[in-house]
């Protein structure tokens, strides 16, 4: 984790501190409003005392965590969010298939043959892309991520049979999908 110290006015301006602070504070305050449940816990509508409590709690949390949650610079964030939503829908379908596959292996319809495979992903570069890909591997039928090496993009994966392992190393369908969502090109241009 590198620590950057801002010495010149260009550094402070390009870090957009105000935007991060205001965004984090508004998200925390809306979260507090939703959790305090106006029609269940407070029979009267909101007045100044209750809202000041919410502002106080949200302010404390924001002062502690505002540098963490929103990244400093992001290019084409809206387009990545727009491509992420059908990915989440595909992911929920994969969760259903995963439970079906585990059910078949527990009841004895399909055999068990566990193995550990390693592969590289030259396409993904940012931290969030590594996180999304590792979570998707864990939610896909038959595979769980064991180790992630972010410098070379090397994933170590434990597969429960030969077919899920082949679908990760040979087909590489999911890697291309995650690379398309985060708009990252492959490095040598051959895959």
């Amino acid at each position: 984790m590198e620590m950057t110290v801002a010495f010149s006015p260009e550094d402070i301006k390009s870090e957009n501190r105000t935007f991060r602070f205001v965004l984090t504070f508004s998200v925390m305050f809306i979260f507090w409003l939703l959790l305090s449940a106006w029609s269940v816990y407070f029979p009267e509508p909101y007045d100044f005392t209750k809202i000041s409590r919410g502002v106080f709690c949200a302010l404390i949390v924001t002062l502690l965590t505002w540098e963490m949650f929103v990244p400093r610079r992001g290019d084409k964030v809206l387009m990545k969010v727009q491509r992420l939503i059908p990915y989440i829908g595909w992911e929920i379908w994969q969760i259903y298939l995963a439970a079906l596959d585990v059910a078949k292996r527990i009841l004895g319809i399909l055999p068990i043959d566990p193995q550990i495979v390693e592969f590289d992903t030259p396409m993904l570069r940012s931290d969030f892309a590594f996180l999304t890909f590792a979570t998707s591997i864990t939610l896909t039928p038959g595979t769980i991520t064991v180790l992630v090496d972010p410098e070379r993009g090397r994933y170590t994966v434990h597969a429960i049979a030969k077919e899920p392992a082949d679908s990760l190393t040979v087909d590489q369908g999911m890697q291309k999908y995650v690379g398309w969502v985060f708009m990252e090109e492959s490095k040598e241009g051959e895959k």
Partner: protein
Amino acid sequence: MLAIDIISTLFMAAGALVMILGTLGLLKFPDFYTRLHATGKCDTLGQILIIFGCMIYEGFSFITIKLLFVTLFYLFAGPCSTHALMKAAYVTGVPVWKKGDKRM
């Protein structure tokens, strides 16, 4: 009984069935890594199904939003804790079961 009652009962029954299968996998599988397969996947999906059934039964109110928060949180926290346990066991040196070994 209304249609909403029947739909939510179906979701909760499916979730309970998936949880029973996850527990059977915990007893039956021969190795730590394969048991984590059964636990991590079946637990997450069973919980999502049962809480979704409760959400449908409730309708639109503030309790539904809180249950949605629990579901979304566990959708991200379940695979994360599974991966953390798997990494800790692999680095420490728990042996991997191959086909034809003894049960461990």
